[in-house]
C-alpha cells in the first residue's frame, strides 16, 4: 500500500485551545491522559468496522484465487465475529475481554482453516495499513497536546484496543503527535478503561498523584466515570455521532459484507466527518461546503467510473469535451496515474454554440429544435443572426412562417421558428459548411492520428458526440467514438451511430426513470454549474497569427458571479477528492465502483434545504445555444403576492423544480398547488 507523506496530511491542522475548559483544567495537572480512537485520532470511515471492508478491498488489487475472492467478500463479517469469539474465550479463560489483534486472527485461522493462513496474514497487514491511511488527528486535541507539552506537562495515551502499543504509537506519530511519554493499551496490559482497572495501573506507572492527571475521552462511562472513580480529573469530549454525519446507523445483525455500496458509504460518511473536524474553517464558505459535501463524492465516483471505463474500452485518446469536462479531466488524471493508465488526454474547447450549427452536415429535424432552444424569449432577429442568417434577406420566408417582424420574441419551442429553419434549410446548410472549415480543422487537429477516441462529456442527449463525429469530416466512418457520460436521456437515440458507443454512469437512455426525472427536474442545471470551467464559453474558432486554429472564448461579465461560485465549489470538490486519494492509496478502485457516490447529490436535487435552494436558486443559468448573454435564474423567488397562474408559470420557467418548491414554499401552500 502506498505510504503517505506525513507533511502532506491536513490532519496536522490544529485549532486554538486557549480559553477552553480543557486547558483550564490542565493548569493544575502534571499529566494529560488522552483516549486514542475517536478522541486523539479519528478514522475517515463512518464506523470502526468499516476498516475491515477497506482491508478486503485493498487485497483485490492482487492476484487471487476464486476461493480467496469469496473469502474477501465475507471478510468484514467474519472479522467482526472472530473478534467477538476471541473476547468470549478470553473472558472464559482469563476473566477479561481485552484481546490482541493476533488473537483475533488466530480465531479466524481456526475458522477458515490453516490453508488460509497466508491470506489472513495479508489481511492482517492490510488492516494495519488501512488504519494508518484512514486515521487523522483531532485538531483540537492535537493542539491541546502540543500546548500541554509547551507547558512541560507529560502526555500519555490510554486505549481499550486490540492493536498493540507500538502500532498505536505509530498511528499517533503519523497523525502528528510527538514527544508523548507512554501508550497504555488494554490488549497488552490485560486491564481496561471500561472496567476501571487501567487507571490505577497507569497512575502507578506514572508515579503521580491521581488528582494531578487530567483524562479526556469520548466515552462517558469508560473515560469519565472510570477515571473519576480512580480519582483522576476527567473531561468528556464526545465525538460526532454517526447520526450527525448523515450516515445511517448500522442495524444489529446487518450485513457487513465488503460490497462497494457499503465501502463507499463508509468512506463518504467518514470523510464528511473529517471535513467537519479538520477543514471546518475552509468549509465555512457555503460553496466550498457544498463542493465538499455533495459534488466531491459525486465527482469522485464519476472519476472512478471514468477511469475504469477508459481502461476497459482502450481508446487511443480521450477528449474531454467542453466546459463541463474541465474539472472531470483534473480529477481523472491522478486516478489514471494510480491505475497506470497512460492514455493521452486532451481538453477540447467547445460548446453547443461552437459545434452544433457547424455540425449540420446533414439535416435531422429533431436536432433543429436545439438550435433555438431556450426560455429567455430572444427576438427572432437575434436568433437568426446567431445562426448566421440575415433576416433582411429572408423577409418572405419570415412572413410565410408566421412572423410579422424580426423584433418579435420567440416563444419556447416556437413552431414558427422550426418552420422558418425548414424553409431556409439550404441556407442553413451553407452557413454550417462555411463555419465548419475552422471547427473541423480544430477537432481533426486534436484527434491527430488516433482513430478510436473516447469522448468525455456530462450528458444528456449525445448531441456533442454526434456533432464531433460529423465534424471530423466526411470520412468519419474511419473513426470509432465512445462517449462516456454522467447520464443520457432517451432522446440520445437520434444521435447514435452504428459502431459507436454511448455509455452512461447514473442513467442510461432515460432509465431508471426516477433518476431521469431528478436530472430533468434540476440535476442538469446544478451539475452544469458545478462542472463549469473557469474560462468563458467557447464562442467559435479563429486562425491565429501562426496559422493554428484556436478557440475564441467569451468574456462575459454577467457570468462572473456564476464562475466565482463555481470556483469556490471546485475548491470543496478538490478537498474531498484529495482526502479520498490520501486514504485509499492501496484500495483497489474496482471495489469502489458504485453509484452510492451520488446519494448526496440526489438528496440535494430532490430535497434541498432552504439554504441550498436559496444560494443555488439565485444563480443565473445561460439560456440557449450560442448566446450566453441571456441568463435566467435557476429558480426564481417570486414576490409574496404572486397569483396562482404566475406561480405555475414560474415553475415552468424554473431550471430546478424541486428548488422552486422550497424557495416558494409559502406561495405554493397558499395557493394549494401540487407541483408533482
Amino acid at each position: 500500500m502506498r505510504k503517505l507523506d506525513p507533511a502532506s496530511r491536513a490532519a496536522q491542522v490544529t485549532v486554538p485551545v486557549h480559553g477552553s475548559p480543557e486547558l483550564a483544567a490542565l493548569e493544575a495537572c502534571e499529566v494529560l491522559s488522552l483516549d486514542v480512537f475517536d478522541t486523539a485520532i479519528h478514522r475517515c470511515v463512518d464506523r470502526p468496522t468499516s476498516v475491515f471492508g477497506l482491508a478486503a478491498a485493498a487485497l483485490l488489487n492482487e492476484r487471487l484465487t476464486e476461493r480467496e475472492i469469496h473469502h474477501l467478500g465475507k471478510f468484514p463479517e467474519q472479522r467482526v465475529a472472530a473478534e467477538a469469539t476471541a473476547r468470549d474465550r478470553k473472558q472464559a479463560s482469563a476473566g477479561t475481554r481485552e484481546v490482541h489483534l493476533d488473537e483475533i486472527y488466530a480465531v479466524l485461522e481456526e475458522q477458515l482453516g490453516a490453508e488460509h493462513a497466508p491470506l489472513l496474514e495479508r489481511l492482517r497487514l492490510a488492516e494495519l495499513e488501512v488504519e494508518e491511511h484512514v486515521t487523522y488527528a483531532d485538531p483540537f486535541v492535537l493542539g491541546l497536546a502540543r500546548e500541554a507539552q509547551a507547558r512541560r506537562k507529560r502526555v500519555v495515551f490510554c486505549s481499550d484496543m486490540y492493536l498493540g502499543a507500538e502500532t498505536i504509537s505509530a498511528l499517533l506519530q503519523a497523525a502528528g503527535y510527538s514527544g508523548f511519554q507512554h501508550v497504555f493499551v488494554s490488549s497488552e496490559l490485560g486491564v481496561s478503561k471500561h472496567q476501571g482497572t487501567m487507571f490505577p495501573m497507569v497512575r502507578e506507572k506514572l508515579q503521580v498523584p491521581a488528582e494531578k492527571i487530567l483524562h479526556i475521552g469520548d466515552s462517558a462511562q469508560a473515560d469519565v466515570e472510570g477515571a473519576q472513580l480512580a480519582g483522576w480529573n476527567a473531561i468528556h469530549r464526545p465525538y460526532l455521532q454517526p447520526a450527525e454525519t448523515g450516515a445511517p446507523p448500522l442495524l444489529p445483525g446487518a450485513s457487513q459484507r465488503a460490497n462497494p455500496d457499503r465501502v463507499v458509504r463508509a468512506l463518504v460518511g467518514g470523510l464528511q466527518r473529517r471535513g467537519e473536524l479538520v477543514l471546518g474553517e475552509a468549509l465555512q464558505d457555503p460553496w466550498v461546503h457544498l463542493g465538499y459535501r455533495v459534488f466531491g463524492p459525486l465527482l469522485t465516483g464519476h472519476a472512478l467510473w471514468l477511469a475504469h471505463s477508459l481502461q476497459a474500452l482502450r481508446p487511443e485518446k480521450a477528449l474531454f469535451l467542453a466546459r463541463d469536462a474541465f474539472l472531470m479531466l483534473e480529477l481523472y488524471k491522478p486516478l489514471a496515474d494510480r491505475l497506470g493508465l497512460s492514455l493521452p488526454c486532451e481538453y477540447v474547447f467547445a460548446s453547443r454554440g461552437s459545434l452544433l450549427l457547424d455540425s449540420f452536415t446533414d439535416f435531422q429535424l429533431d436536432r433543429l429544435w436545439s438550435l433555438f432552444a431556450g426560455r429567455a424569449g430572444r427576438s427572432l432577429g437575434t436568433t437568426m443572426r446567431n445562426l448566421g442568417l440575415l433576416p433582411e434577406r429572408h423577409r418572405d420566408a419570415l412572413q410565410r412562417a408566421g412572423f410579422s417582424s424580426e423584433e418579435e420574441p420567440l416563444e419556447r419551442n416556437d413552431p414558427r421558428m422550426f418552420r422558418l429553419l425548414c424553409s431556409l434549410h439550404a441556407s442553413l446548410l451553407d452557413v454550417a459548411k462555411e463555419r465548419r472549415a475552422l471547427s473541423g480543422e480544430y477537432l481533426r487537429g486534436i484527434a491527430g492520428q488516433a482513430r478510436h477516441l473516447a469522448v468525455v462529456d456530462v450528458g444528456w442527449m449525445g448531441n456533442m458526440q454526434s456533432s464531433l463525429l460529423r465534424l471530423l469530416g466526411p470520412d468519419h466512418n474511419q473513426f470509432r467514438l465512445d462517449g462516456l457520460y454522467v447520464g443520457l436521456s432517451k432522446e440520445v437515440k437520434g444521435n447514435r451511430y452504428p459502431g459507436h458507443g454511448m455509455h452512461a454512469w447514473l442513467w442510461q437512455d432515460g432509465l431508471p426513470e426516477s433518476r431521469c426525472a431528478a436530472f430533468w427536474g434540476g440535476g442538469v442545471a446544478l451539475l452544469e454549474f458545478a462542472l463549469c470551467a473557469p474560462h468563458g464559453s467557447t464562442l467559435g474558432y479563429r486562425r491565429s497569427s501562426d496559422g493554428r486554429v484556436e478557440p475564441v472564448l467569451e468574456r462575459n461579465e454577467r457570468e462572473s458571479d456564476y464562475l466565482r461560485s463555481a470556483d469556490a465549489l471546485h475548491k470543496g470538490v478538490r478537498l474531498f477528492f484529495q482526502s479520498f486519494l490520501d486514504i485509499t492509496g492501496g484500495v483497489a478502485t474496482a471495489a469502489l465502483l458504485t453509484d452510492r457516490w451520488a446519494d448526496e447529490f440526489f438528496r440535494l436535487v430532490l430535497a434541498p434545504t432552504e439554504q441550498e435552494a436559496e444560494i443555488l436558486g439565485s444563480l443565473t443559468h445561460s439560456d440557449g445555444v450560442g448566446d450566453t448573454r441571456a441568463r435566467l435564474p435557476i429558480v426564481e423567488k417570486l414576490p409574496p403576492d404572486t397569483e396562482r397562474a404566475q406561480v405555475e408559470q414560474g415553475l415552468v420557467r424554473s431550471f430546478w423544480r424541486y428548488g422552486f418548491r422550497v424557495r416558494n414554499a409559502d406561495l405554493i401552500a397558499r395557493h394549494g398547488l401540487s407541483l408533482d
Partner: protein
Amino acid sequence: MSTSPSAWPPVVGIVTRTQDRSPLLRRALRSVRAQSHPHWKLVVVNDGGDPAAVDALIAEQADPRIQVVHHPRALGMGATVNAGLRQLDSDLVAIHDDADSWAPEFLAVCVAELSRLERTLPSVHGVATYCNRVLDRVSGQFVEVDQIEPFNLWAPPGLVSFHQLFQENFVPPISFVFRRDSAEALGGFRENLPDLADWDFLVRFLQRHDVYLIPEVLAFYHHRMSVTGTMEGAAIEDSHQHQLCRTVLLNEWLRRDLAGEGGGLGIYASLRSPLDLLSQRAAAVEKKLTETNQRLEDVQKTLYGKLIPDSREPVQRLQDIQAALYEQLLPRLNQVLSQSDRLKDIQTQLYEQITPALNRTLSQVERLVGLVQRVRDRFSSPLINRILRR
C-alpha cells in the same frame, strides 16, 4: 468501384432529368455544385423540354463538369436515366432529379462509406442515406419550401432489407449512389414503365448486391403541394398510376414464376400480400383501441375536474366501464394478432422453401448474363447488339 490508387478520389457521375422546370433545375444545379466532394460529372438530360432554357441555365454555370443531352421528345424516366448513364464513364453514379436536392456533404460521405464497405462488405455495391421529404410550393420562377418531414428515418441503418424494400420503396433515387458497372450489368432502368422504374431497378439491384443505408439525413426528396402549368405532371405521385405500375410488375414476376422462368419474386409477393393486409388491419384495430382509450381517459379527466373531490363514485364507474370495454376489445385484438403471427410463421416457412429455388434461379440468370456477355463480345456488331438489346 475501382480500388486502384489512381482512382482515388473517385469521380461520381450524376444524371439529372429535367423537362421545362427551370426554377427546379437551377436549384438542382446549385445543389450539385455545392458538394464538398468536387470530383463529379453531371449530365443533364432534357427530356423533351425547351432546349434553349436548359442551355442558358447551364451556360450560366460556366462549369466544364456539366454537359447536356437533349431529347427531341419525352422518353420517360427509365430511358432518360439510361441516356444519362450512357454518357458517363465514372465508377460511381447517382441520380439527382431536377426537383430534388442534397446537403453539401452527400457525395463526400457516400464515397467515403462505399470505399470503407468495399473492404469490409464486398457485397455492397451501393449506399443510400436517410432523407427528408420536402414539400415545395412553386410560383412562377420561385420555389419555396413549405414543410420538411422525415421520410425514411424509421428504417434501421446498415444493410437495406430486401424484404422491407419489397414492401415499399423507401430509398428514393436522390439518396442513392451506386456502382455504374452493377447498373450496366442489370441493363439499367426499365424504359417501358411510366412509374416505379426506380423501385424495379432497386429490386433487381438487391437481387444481386447489397445496399447500405447511412444514418445521416443528407438527401432531400422534394414534392410539390400545388402546381401550375407544366409543373403539374411532376407533382406528388399519381397514386392510380403508381398502383397500376406496381400491379404490372407483380403480375409480370408471378407470370414468370408460374411459367418456371422467374426467380420466385412473384410467388413471394403474392404470399405476403394477404399478410400485409392483415397486419394493416391489426394495426388499424390497435389504433382504434388506443384512440378509444384516449377518449375515455379524456372524458375521465374532464369529469374528474368537474366532480367534487370527495365524490369518486362516478369516476370509479367510468373506470369500470373502461375496464369492461377493454375486456371486450382485447380478446378480439389478440385474436387478430395471433392470426397474424400464424400467417407470419407460414410466410417464414414458405420463404425458407422458396429461397433455395430463388438462389438457383439467380445463379442461372447470372450464368445466362455471362453467356450473353460472351456472345456479345464474340459477335460484336451493331446489328447483333441491337438484337440483343431488344
